């Protein structure tokens, strides 16, 4: 039976070639859309890694002119005390300007033995974990005693641990940052932070502790507040900061809003792609429907003859539906050949599972589309009366 259908398709290869190329291109477009969707969904269902509710970000720039690091430290320690003493403030932390959900990114290398990977570099102080509510998986966060340690401590994210150490334990290992020296000791592992919004993956990251000279190059403060902190309090906090750091610019942002705008930036292209893909699919569906319908009208004689020698309406319509499904199969085989190159050549640095899930979804989608489009023409064909059809010839 299938062999016979192939023959029928081959006989009309010229006409079918165009239909097939249309299905092929739609498969590739749908594949791209599904890959994007699966990728986004995969990232979305993972935890954010930090708590953005009631977390405020203070942007400032260090303008305190002094040569002595001690007076610089005192300057910022006093500021911390002042803010921390406000009743609405739970925690204050100074950190490098590449805070999560900002456009600012610091990337660099991390080495272990011969492995080198690209990571996000963060500089954070002892209170960072509590301000951000980071999830500690192993070991500990930085503390005051670290200042006197001989080897510098470092905290890594779970993605860094997986890439550098695989199944080995990470705690206590010496790793290198930037240059070839392995002089940082891993003291803790945290759950990775999705720094580029809900729909992006948590990139491998390392956290270095602020040291005595760091304050001159830091420019961000994380302030965790209680839920009842309102605009009036924000105004008060702003005045306190601006009056204390006379020459600095001060800006307070809410991490909740930053998350919204970051997500919007990833969602808008996604929504546009979806709308475009939707229209393309409707377009293709209508086209397929029209062409199949016309084909059946042209084959009335053939169908009438089949009905006359005893084929049931059911078998006629199933023949037409399976003919189009075979056409779809042929174009899907070619399409899959192209699609499989993406995981094989690792084009966009995505996991192979994402491509495979997307591929399966788009194959099912195309089959469904072709099936639905050929259902009605098939039914029409089944309704052809042999007497009428043969009389026309």
């Amino acid at each position, binding site marked *: 039976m299938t062999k016979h259908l192939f023959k029928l398709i081959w006989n009309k290869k010229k006409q079918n070639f165009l239909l097939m190329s249309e299905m092929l*291109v739609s498969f590739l*477009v749908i594949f791209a859309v599904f890959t994007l969707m699966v990728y986004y969904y995969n990232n979305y269902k993972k935890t954010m890694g930090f708590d953005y509710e009631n977390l405020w970000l203070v942007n400032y720039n260090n303008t305190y002119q002094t040569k002595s690091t001690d007076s610089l430290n005192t300057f910022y320690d006093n500021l911390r005390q002042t803010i921390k003493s406000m009743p609405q403030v739970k925690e204050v932390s100074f950190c490098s300007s590449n805070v999560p959900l900002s456009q600012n990114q610091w990337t660099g290398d991390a080495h272990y033995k011969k492995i080198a990977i690209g990571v996000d570099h963060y500089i954070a102080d002892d209170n960072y974990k509590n301000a951000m509510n980071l999830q500690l998986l192993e070991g500990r966060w930085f503390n005051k005693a670290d200042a006197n340690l001989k080897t510098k401590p470092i905290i890594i994210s779970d993605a860094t641990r997986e890439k550098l150490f695989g199944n080995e334990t990470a705690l206590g290992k010496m790793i290198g940052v930037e240059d070839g020296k392995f002089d940082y000791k891993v003291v803790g592992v945290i759950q990775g932070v999705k720094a580029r919004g809900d729909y992006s993956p948590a990139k491998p990251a390392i956290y270095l502790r602020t040291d005595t000279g760091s304050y001159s190059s830091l420019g961000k403060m994380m302030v965790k507040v209680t839920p009842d902190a309102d605009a009036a309090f924000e105004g008060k906090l702003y005045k306190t900061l601006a009056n204390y750091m006379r020459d600095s*610019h001060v800006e*307070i942002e809410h991490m909740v809003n930053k998350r919204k705008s970051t997500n919007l930036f990833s969602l808008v292209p996604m929504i546009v792609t979806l709308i475009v893909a939707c229209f393309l699919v409707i377009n293709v569906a209508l086209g397929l429907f*029209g062409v199949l319908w016309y084909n059946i009208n042209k084959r009335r004689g053939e169908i009438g003859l089949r009905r006359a020698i005893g084929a049931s309406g059911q078998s006629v319509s199933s023949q037409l539906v399976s003919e189009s499904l075979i056409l779809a199969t042929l174009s899907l085989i070619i399409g899959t050949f192209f699609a499989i190159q993406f995981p094989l050549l690792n084009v966009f640095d995505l996991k192979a599972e994402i491509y495979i899930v997307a591929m399966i979804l788009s194959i099912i989608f195309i089959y469904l589309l072709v099936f639905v489009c050929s259902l009605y023409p098939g039914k029409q064909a089944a309704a052809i009366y042999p007497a009428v059809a043969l009389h026309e010839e």
Partner: protein
Amino acid sequence: MLKNYFKIAIAVLRRRKFFTFISLFGISFTLTILLVLTAFIDKVVGDNYPDKKRDRSLYVSRVSQTGKNTMSSSPPSFYFLDHYVRTIKTPITIAISSGFNGTNTYVNNKKIAVNYKYTNSEYWEVLEYDFLEGKAFSKQQVANSDKVAIISADMKKEYFGDVPNVVGQYIEADNVKYRVIGVVQNVPITSYMTYSDIYLPYTVAKDGDYKNNKGYQGGYYGILLANSASDLDKLHNEYEQMIQRLKPEQKEFDRVSSHADNYIRSYVDTGDDRHSGVFIVVTAISIFAFILMILPTLNLVNINITRIMERSSEIGVRKAFGASSSTLVYQFIVENIILTLLGGVIGVILSFIVLQVINSAHLIANLELSINFMVLFIGLLVCLVFGLISGVYPAWRMSKLNVVTALKAQ
């Protein structure tokens, strides 16, 4: 003859309404998406408010220093623009402005996010902002570090509410009170070199970066205005020569690069000479447009072939009476172009509606998209290309029809 073709085309379109609908749907929606895209690009790179003298301006948006494996790229510093660029001999006016930065201000326990920007006084000569009231700050006011501000219309509404006149009043931003001396029409944020809510003299900048930073890199943009458009080539070359003479600031770098380019080039400047921003943007847009157009085109070809085969008897008769293949191909292509133009009209109406929706959604502040002649012209071009491409192959197939089979088919 054309009139005849037109009549036939309309008759054919009315015969199979379903196929006509499919064709028109495909054409009009593709065109809608392309038109919206064009309107967006046209607005972002083509809108010349407030820099109306683009034809004699060059823009400096980046300074890069590259070494073997390292690269540092950022907007130039104030010192770079004020010191090195001023050595150029061609007479120019240099507008210098910082990138916009954010701060807050609190009015009646309400928080207002404010973007501010520092400029020199020449900035207001080079750029022609529309002043709704007041005027720009003068050279003298800049030299005196007067705390004066020019604000955007949006800022005025948000900070002062609906009042007719605000010149002379004070606005507080970044914990400093500035006297408002002018209100200008809004600029969309996509024009990142000229957008801001508040414009301040550079001498009031708290961080003093304009006098302390003697390096090449900083956070300022420069616009070089020549006396006439014919000076631009000379100016461009002189700028390149000036850059050639600069030595890298640190040992790990071996080259300094920076360009004074026209608006579009500097808008997408990546700072990396090996990967031109214009090339990346053009490639990305072409790939998107190609993918977008290939499916509807294939679809249209499919439908067209189906329709032609339906008309085989008509073609057979015309051929039997001596019509040449080229006449038939010509006729069919004209018919197809009529169809696409019809789809084009629907597409323009659809995109008009879509643009209204986008504008009212306020996705990007102050970005008012509209259809202008440029956009319409591109739409017409797309329609013609569409009609030709999707018409040629079916027409060729049709002209190859054998007279006998064509006549017998009915």
